[in-house]
């Protein structure tokens, strides 16, 4: 039998025993604690910065720019850094998450607050209120629902990220996951992935409840403080961190490493392109099959469930599993990006099909055309614009993620960075990090351009 299927079969059935599930309470609590603590800090820092920016207070914009800079470094890369600088365990993971999400949340809060309706804010200003008063009486109440909604989206994404940072030594479920893979305990890996899916869907329910009963939010600060205390950095070896950090400069690559660089970048772009292509090819039929206005319920519902499952497993976790199944290397990386993207694109495509204007579709059906002709002449061409936009965004995101899955052994620039880090060649590591930041910045730039070209309307959910 093909090694791929033999290896895949080794993951089933999932291993379940009361003893193991009890032993997992620790790692699960550690992952959740890491997330809660990090997000508490992220919200605490981002809200004033967002408000300062929206009220055009001096320094607000600069502070936001500074925080947003951390977003340029992928979360897993930040985690590797924090493990080097601050040691093992949930402390380093929490720090990486806090830094990354401070950037993400500050940008999001700033953007949201700036869209507050102008009239009430102007009326407040006319009363002679100062910036803080405008923020408290105008911006916050006006946008509280949006802040809560988008803030909780970020929290969900942080829960997934906590598993990712764990994979490089940040503790919790992620460390356990890597451990089971390295120890050939594949059936336990499946158990862990199922637990991850359950946690993510549980958090989803929780955020829905939070939007309904915003009072629950008052529980967050005490839990956040407790999490910071128990799972935060136990100590900060600042002297060691400073020395190690200084040892990363100046970033240098040897002649041989320079020589390999174009191939590495090419491999990273290739992983992103192949992963996106894989996702697009399968997302088209699956998107059609899960669009409520096209497919019958008995097809659409199971396909939707499948897409949901694909999407709730982060790229890095797919990568870790696929490296066992398909072998270390770029194939595993591309498949990892492809499977997660398939989950995301499938849903977005289905929505694009569902949002097609009805009139032209009805007009063609009125000529007596069959269902496939109607799909080919109306539904498909009408949905093509949004589908193209979504696919392009996914490619840009995958470009970023391709640098990340490399870190777990999937090839490209990420792998070079990880190997350099493992061998403690910190100057080349810094050089590779700068290349990664450049790739991410290029992806972000492309993203901004695409967004400006297509407009936001295609992405409005």
């Amino acid at each position, binding site marked *: 039998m093909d090694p791929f299927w033999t290896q895949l079969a080794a993951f089933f059935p999932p291993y379940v025993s009361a003893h*193991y599930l009890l032993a997992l309470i620790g790692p699960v609590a550690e992952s959740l604690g890491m997330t809660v603590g990090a997000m508490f800090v992220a919200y605490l820092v981002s809200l004033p910065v967002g408000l300062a920016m929206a009220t055009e207070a001096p320094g607000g914009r600069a502070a936001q720019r500074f925080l947003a800079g951390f977003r340029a470094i992928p979360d897993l890369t930040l985690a590797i850094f924090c*493990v080097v600088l601050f040691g*093992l365990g949930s402390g380093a993971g929490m720090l990486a998450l806090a830094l990354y999400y401070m950037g993400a949340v500050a940008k999001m809060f700033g953007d949201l607050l700036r869209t507050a309706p102008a009239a009430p804010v102007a009326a407040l200003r006319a009363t002679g209120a100062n910036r803080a008063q405008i923020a408290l009486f105008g911006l916050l109440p006006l946008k*509280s629902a949006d802040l809560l909604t988008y803030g909780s989206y970020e929290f969900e994404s942080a829960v997934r990220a906590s598993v990712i940072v764990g994979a490089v030594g940040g503790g919790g479920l992620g460390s356990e996951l890597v451990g*089971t893979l*390295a120890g050939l305990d594949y059936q336990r890996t499946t158990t862990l992935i199922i637990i991850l899916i359950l946690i993510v869907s549980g958090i989803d329910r929780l955020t829905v409840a939070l939007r309904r009963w915003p009072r629950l939010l008052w529980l967050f600060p005490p839990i956040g403080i407790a999490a910071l205390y128990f799972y935060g950095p136990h100590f900060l070896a600042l002297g060691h961190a400073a020395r190690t950090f200084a040892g990363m400069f100046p970033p240098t690559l040897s002649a041989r490493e320079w020589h390999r660089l174009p191939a590495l970048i090419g491999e990273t772009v290739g992983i992103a392109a192949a992963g996106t292509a894989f996702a697009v090819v399968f997302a088209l039929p699956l998107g059609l099959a899960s669009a409520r206005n096209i497919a019958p319920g008995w097809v659409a519902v199971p396909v939707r469930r499948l897409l949901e499952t694909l999407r709730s497993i982060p790229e890095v976790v797919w990568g870790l599993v696929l490296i066992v199944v398909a072998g270390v290397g770029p194939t595993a990386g591309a498949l990892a990006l492809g499977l997660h993207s398939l989950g995301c694109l499938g849903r977005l495509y289905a929505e694009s099909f569902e949002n097609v204007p009805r009139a032209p579709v009805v007009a063609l059906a009125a000529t007596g055309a069959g269902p496939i002709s109607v799909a080919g002449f109306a539904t498909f061409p009408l949905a093509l614009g949004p589908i193209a936009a979504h696919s392009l965004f996914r490619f840009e995101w995958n470009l970023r993620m391709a640098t990340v899955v490399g870190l777990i052994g999937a090839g490209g620039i990420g792998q070079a960075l990880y190997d350099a880090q493992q061998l403690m060649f910190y100057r080349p590591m810094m050089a590779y990090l700068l290349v990664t930041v450049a790739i991410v910045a290029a992806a972000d730039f492309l993203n901004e351009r695409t967004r400006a070209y297509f407009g936001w309307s295609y992405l409005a959910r």
Partner: protein
Amino acid sequence: MPLHPLSRRNLIVVGAAALLTIVSGVSRADDTIRIGMIPDAGATQVSIDQKAPLQAYLAKELGHPVKLVIPTSYNATVEGLGNGSLDFAYLGGLTFVKAHGRYGVAPLVQRDIDKKFHSLFITQADSSIHALADLKGKTFAFGDINSTSGHLMPYRAMVKAGIDPDKDLKWFRYTGSHAATVQAVAAGVAEAGSVDETVFRALIAENKVDGKKLRVFFTSPDFVDYVWVARKDIDPAIQKKFAEAFLRLTPEHDAAILAILRGNKFVTATAAEYDDIEDVAKRLAMF
């Protein structure tokens, strides 16, 4: 959905939580000794569970609470010694050379077999590979990039046999652990691989892989490998206690602990024995 300003009830909740945190903080005074082990055979709740007898033994011998930690990578173990999050650690040859060079860690003890350790080259029983020269154009799995028996010494053996891994292999990959290498070769993901001899034998003895499917086609010359070390600013008295705890182990009394350590007898280790490893690492640009 306006958020209500702090009501009295909310203040009570916040206050209670703050109090709870402070109270629990007092009980967290910490004299635990943290011992790290490189993840040469995987790191999970289960593997830490399995090592519980070792943890209990060391806690008794050292007179301190002990926490065993298995980081997710070799590098993280070394950095743990550097930034002080680990007090003692179990390292491989190459990781020792690095930790010694960067952070001055002190070698304490090692198994007698570590003085004359071997790396095994494995392939599937029915494969056409019978000698190092046959590896030309084949796919190959190394263990962790920092592993002495999974990467450094096999790499040198290949170079000595006239195979340049960068050019002559179809491709090679780092699997991250010896167990993963064995699995990769058994499943046919890679055609051959190099592993630690003790991990390989343990996997077959525990029936985690089918020994009949695999064949050893080359055994490396002797080299010095795994060693237990202490961070340099650990109290010498505790270092001494730690070393003695290992030297005192005998198969008659401590079979369970020795099984965990995959050895029979512990001996004193010295830094000078690693000069050869350091030299090889430097020549192969791994140090």
